[in-house]
């Protein structure tokens, strides 16, 4: 960690222009922390070589920021690039070896007709002097960030053998104003916080957004009817449906992995319990029946079980129950307050908001190697609402800074954290979307 200050300086250099353009979007982005063991990669600027107006997006810069944010890569700053090849034939391997780069990405942007652009890019293994990838992607000007995120996904997967999750989205809640002036919004943005879009605005609190597995819909809780109610809304059409509005709490909706069921919390019986609703028939099945608060259900990737928060043992802890019903078993035994579980796609990792006294941090329980090992992903104070990326490489969570809420993305090894801040107001309850294209 002695190299950290150096890396901070390098990262600052890389991110200065990014921060500037981000502020125009109402977001600040900065990386707090570095990773000395990350893989060095040079992503050379990809100039526009066409004859029309150049696209507004610096594709190479977006790719660089994505790879950095994962914690698995460290990108060479542009200023250190003494050569700027745009195609394989121009690559001088000794240059990049001298710069101690393991990987090199070069490319260019050309016209694709009808106002579209094509990005042609190649990935090289510097030591082996081999081309690993050569691809082209076409898009209109307003989709160039999408192209860059897909490039980062392909590079990430080619090198690490794990599917990238940069071309994904995040949903979150914002609040501006206080008391009677408070206004709430359910937002959707790219995974790096860019392109924020409003899905719903409300004068009453909104909370607990949750993605459908195909990424087309969001379930959430709204107080617009006075009491909590659950809605499902189509993101592209805006069409929405009131799902439950029972007496008492209507909360914590989450879609099953097949998208056909919704787990939720209802207190219509007088006490908060976990239910599963069949979205076709609207039929409810009660999963828990316990004196105590049972809430925050979340599905295992195969849909066979549901994790949830319960204080049946005195303090909130994570429990698991078969999604068909049955008895629940306790999952978390470390920490006296564990809530809001998010489960990785392979079920091996569970991240929670872990409280101790007045300090709440994001902690992760990893059972990849058998018995669970705990690690801390966030520095703490009032950190909450963890949400895994679909490839479990990163966790998004909410934190308080002074009186405002901000979002962080932290790599699952806790080495790199990035902050996404809305310029005005409070940001919270992030939910990471599924992959945007099925496989």
């Amino acid at each position: 960690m002695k190299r950290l200050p150096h890396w901070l300086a390098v990262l600052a250099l890389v991110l200065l222009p990014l921060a500037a353009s981000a502020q125009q979007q109402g977001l600040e982005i900065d990386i707090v922390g570095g990773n000395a063991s990350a893989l060095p990669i040079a992503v050379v600027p990809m100039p526009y070589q066409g004859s029309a107006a150049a696209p507004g997006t610096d594709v190479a810069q977006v790719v660089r920021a994505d790879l950095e944010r994962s914690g698995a890569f460290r990108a060479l700053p542009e200023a250190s690039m003494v050569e700027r090849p745009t195609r394989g034939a121009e690559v001088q391997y000794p240059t990049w070896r001298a710069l101690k780069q393991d990987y090199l990405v070069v490319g260019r942007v050309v016209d694709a007709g009808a106002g579209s652009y094509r990005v042609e890019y190649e990935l090289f293994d510097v030591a082996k002097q081999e081309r690993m990838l050569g691809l082209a992607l076409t898009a209109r000007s307003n989709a160039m960030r999408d192209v860059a995120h897909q490039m980062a996904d392909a590079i990430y997967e080619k090198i690490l053998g794990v599917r990238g999750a940069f071309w994904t989205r995040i949903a979150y809640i914002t609040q501006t104003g206080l008391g009677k002036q408070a206004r709430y919004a359910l937002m959707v943005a790219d995974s790096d916080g860019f392109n924020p879009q409003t899905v719903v605005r409300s004068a009453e609190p909104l909370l607990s957004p949750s993605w459908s597995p195909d990424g087309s819909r969001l379930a959430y809780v709204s107080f617009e009817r006075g009491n909590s109610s659950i809605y499902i809304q189509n993101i592209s059409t805006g069409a929405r449906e009131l799902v439950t509005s029972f007496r008492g709490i209507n909360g914590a909706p989450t879609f099953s992995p097949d998208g056909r069921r919704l787990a939720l919390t209802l207190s219509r019986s007088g006490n908060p319990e976990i239910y599963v609703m069949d979205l076709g028939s609207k039929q409810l099945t009660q999963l828990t029946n316990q004196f105590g608060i049972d809430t925050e259900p979340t599905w295992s990737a195969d849909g066979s079980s549901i994790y949830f928060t319960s204080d049946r043992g005195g303090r909130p802890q994570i429990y698991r129950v078969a999604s068909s019903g049955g008895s629940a078993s306790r999952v978390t035994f470390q920490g006296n307050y564990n809530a809001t579980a998010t489960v990785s796609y392979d079920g091996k990792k569970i991240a929670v908001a872990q409280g101790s006294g007045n300090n709440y941090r994001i902690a992760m329980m990893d059972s990849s190697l058998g018995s669970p090992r705990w690690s801390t992903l966030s520095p703490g104070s009032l950190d909450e609402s963890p949400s895994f990326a679909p490839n479990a490489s990163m966790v998004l969570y909410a934190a308080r800074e002074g009186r405002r809420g901000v979002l962080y993305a932290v790599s699952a090894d806790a080495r790199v954290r990035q902050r996404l801040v809305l310029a005005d107001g409070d940001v919270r309850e992030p939910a990471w979307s599924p992959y945007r294209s099925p496989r």
Partner: protein
Amino acid sequence: MNNTTRVLMISLLSVAVLAGCKKTVKETPPPPADTTGSTGTVVDNTTAAGAYGPNDLDTDACLRQRVVYFDLDQDSLKPEFQAIVGCHAKYLRDRPSSRMNLEGNADERGSREYNLGLGERRGNAVSSAIQAQGGSGSQISVVSYGEERPVCTESNEDCWARNRRVEIVYTAK
């Protein structure tokens, strides 16, 4: 609920009844007849001696108190709030057409959905206490806002204590 609490509550209730009685007789003239053509009946406006009337909500020292505070992660009613619960229970008894919402709230620490549960528990605690003193459950609705409706937004003990509360809101007087 143990016997001691019950005795305490009953004695507090008597005090509240006496206080309410005195005030109504001494200071509060019967409210003018409702001329707006609302659903209020004649009986509503001719309060029996010692019974609360709608004006008392603004003038009675006990009824004017509409917030019950709780300790961290607790939903048990603190003794100092029994008097408030007592006079509001009497109000519900005196005015069967009145309705109240009990809005349960939590401080910002911990998960939002869990805090919705905690807010509801607190609302239920106040509801039970009011019903134990003769208020009818059919007059009471409990709504939990969890940590979504703070009255104070600093992250410190003072502020958290003010947010851990149940607000008594009359939806029909």
